[in-house]
């Protein structure tokens, strides 16, 4: 198993008893695992900008995916109170300072997100250690960077996550060179149109997480057909 991220010394261990420590203690998923046995968590963040050093998280939406199904019962959406004003970014996400004035701050919300990334014990029972969910996002760098920055600030360290990025998958499947990124062909909406998935009118962190999860189901179905065999996690894993 690729556990290089847990090698001692490279990075300080998270303080025991914290949600981050629990997540760190959970096993990473073996990339050889059949994809339908992997649990994923589709996650989306709305932020005030793209730079985790300067910008803040305003809302978090996530919904688990397991055995080829999106589990709406466990879908969560949380607003996050920023330290500074939302500024111009309100144009994109519609979240105003007033709307966010009395919601929990990131220190309260982050533990719940980390908890969602850690499932219960492994299903088979052989390995009783908790297993992590694989993070599923479209252009996942935003989510991983902001989560890592938040963890470092709150716990002094972070835990790299296994990631499936639907944008990377789309790039690979459509054979689009990277410069095309900016042209919008690979934006979430555009990718969904490619699979004729329904259009979502409103945007919120949860809607986008759900949209990303649906896109992933469509992509993995197509990929399995191309390969002519059931997929393994390694087939879709970005890192």
């Amino acid at each position: 198993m690729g556990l290089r991220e847990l090698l001692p010394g490279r990075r300080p261990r998270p303080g025991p008893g914290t949600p981050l420590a629990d997540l760190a203690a959970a096993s990473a998923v073996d990339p050889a695992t059949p994809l339908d046995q992997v649990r994923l968590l589709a996650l989306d963040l709305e932020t005030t900008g793209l730079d985790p050093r300067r910008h803040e998280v305003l809302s978090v939406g996530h919904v688990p995916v397991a055995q080829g199904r999106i589990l709406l019962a466990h879908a969560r959406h949380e607003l996050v109170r920023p330290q500074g004003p939302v500024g111009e970014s309100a144009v994109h996400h519609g979240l105003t300072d007033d709307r966010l004035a009395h919601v929990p701050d990131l220190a309260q919300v982050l533990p719940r997100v980390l908890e969602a990334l850690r499932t219960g014990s492994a299903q088979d029972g052989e390995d009783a250690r908790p297993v992590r969910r694989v993070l599923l996002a479209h252009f996942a760098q935003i989510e991983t960077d902001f989560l890592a920055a938040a963890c470092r600030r709150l716990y002094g360290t972070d835990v790299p996550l296994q990631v499936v990025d639907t944008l990377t998958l789309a790039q690979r499947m459509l054979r689009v060179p990277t410069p095309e990124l900016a042209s919008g062909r690979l934006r979430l909406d555009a990718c969904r149109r490619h699979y004729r998935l329904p259009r979502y009118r409103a945007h919120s962190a949860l809607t986008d997480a759900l949209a990303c999860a649906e896109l992933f189901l469509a992509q993995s179905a197509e990929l399995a057909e191309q390969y002519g065999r059931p997929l393994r996690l390694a087939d879709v894993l970005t890192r």
Partner: protein
Amino acid sequence: MDVELAEIRDFLAEHPPFDALPADVLDRLPARCTVSYARRGTVVLRPGDHGDRLYLVRSGAVDITDEGHLVDRVGAGGGFGMSALVEHVPARYAATAREDTLLLELPQADFDALAAEHPAVAVHFAATHHGRITAAIAQLQTPARGSAVLKTSVRDLLRAPQPVSVAPSATVAEGARVMTAAGVSSLLVMEGGSLVGIVTDRDLRRRVLAAGVPPDRPVGEVMTPDPVTLPARALALEAMLEMTGRNIHHLPVVEDGRVLGLVTTTDLVRLERSNPVYVVADVQRQEDVAGVVEQAARIPAVVGQLVREDASAADVGRVLAALTDAVTRRLVVLAETQLGPAPGRYAWAALGSVAREEQGLASDQDHALVLADDADPADPWWAAMAERVTAGLEACGLPRCPGGTMATDPRWRQRVSGWRSQFARWGEEPAPEAVLRAAIFYDMRAVHGDADLVVGLRSEVVPLGGRSDLLLAHLTAQSARMRPPIGFFRGLVLEDAGEHRDTLDLKRGIAAVVQMARIHALRAGSTALGSGARLAAAREAGILPKESATDLTDALELLSYLRLRHQAARVAAGEVPDNHLDPRRLGSLDRRHLRDAFAVVRSAQQGLSSRSPQVG
């Protein structure tokens, strides 16, 4: 919780039956669901699968097939997987993704809870499910049409969801208790899922009580082992033959070794009661108007039965005409009995849809009297008789014609010579209003009395009308105004105001085809009455291309069939049958066919208008 799965919620809110749910119920529904994805060609459900969820198509499309035959095509907002939910049996049909499809799944337990609290949800999916079964059965049907026992399969007769059964080791007393509790007269004896015997009330009497067998003996000792069974596709006729031939009253129905239910003699009797032949015979036996009215009340049920058997609209139209004729004839005879013999030779003639044998359940009365040339139209006997018959028909559920086209109007009680000059005036009449009225008189059929009077009259006036360019032009202009509703909402235009808001007036499409057939028949000089026969006559006369004749005939059949099914459903629900269909209640396949039918009508109208002489 905040309505965070708003997109899913809004999707549900757009589609029946969820659109009728209270907002708070709707808000909670998305969180009960899971989402899955089926690539084109993926089989989502196989027949025999034990489904445990309702599938709703979120995007894409799914084909429902029965042994390769398409039963339904489900688009966004449609559902499947109802066998498990509604009937608690394994899937009947295969469900295959026709396009890449996103599915919303509601687990059985959540569906049950929802359906328990909101029965409309259960009713909606049960109706969809029933519609699919009907469609599937239609695929299996032979084209031959006969009495109900020839057309109905025993599967159609099954009512209770699960037959009552016990193990062979159960005691006779236990068996009797089970039967009493379930209110049934027979008990299946099952061992390891297979049928090993049957016990009936009669067996308990003869083999237990009369034989002095103690009630603690096992059922296996008194049952009829290896009972006669029927496959689900057997016809009711076969069931009848088995029962009378073997003197038994209960027949288990099996499919793939599985018992589906029981058919009893009661089921067969009920089936035969709605046979039109019996109704006609019963009508003829009545000695007063009240008796005729009472028998006529059975007619909607007869139509309902025929619709359930998936008889064609053309067949149902003929049966309905035969029944209406029988009622009319009996009313005329009763009037003659009361008023004394008629003061001359005459014919009671049906007009319009009854004459064409194309009526639906919402048709009103249209009729006339054709008197022999030596009869006196001024004799009060005619008016008295016409009033009695008209009132009788009204009591039988056929409303009076709002336009007054009935034998009660002295203008429509004429001698043959009078009718001849009337038709001649219509041929030369410049006023379109008069021609509007005329159309219906070209559909005239003798129901009672001297049929030759009508036949003779028509053989003269039909060719006359066919030679009148003015009449044809007026009729064509009138037909062009009967715009089939096609174009906006999912390809169909709905009434946008009034009591029939958001419905589709099927009569407009039907009337347009009927009128075109009438015009074509006149031009061909044909005295045919039925629209199908008229289109065929026009085709043979080389006036109408073969494809157009076939398309119009098919369009008329489909529109009439949908109207009948709609009317039968309204009657079954205790409502007044009408012509206003809610397209949202149609399956996607029906909707597509309906759109095609309207498109056929529209293009035929355009063709007719461009070829016919024009009026200003």
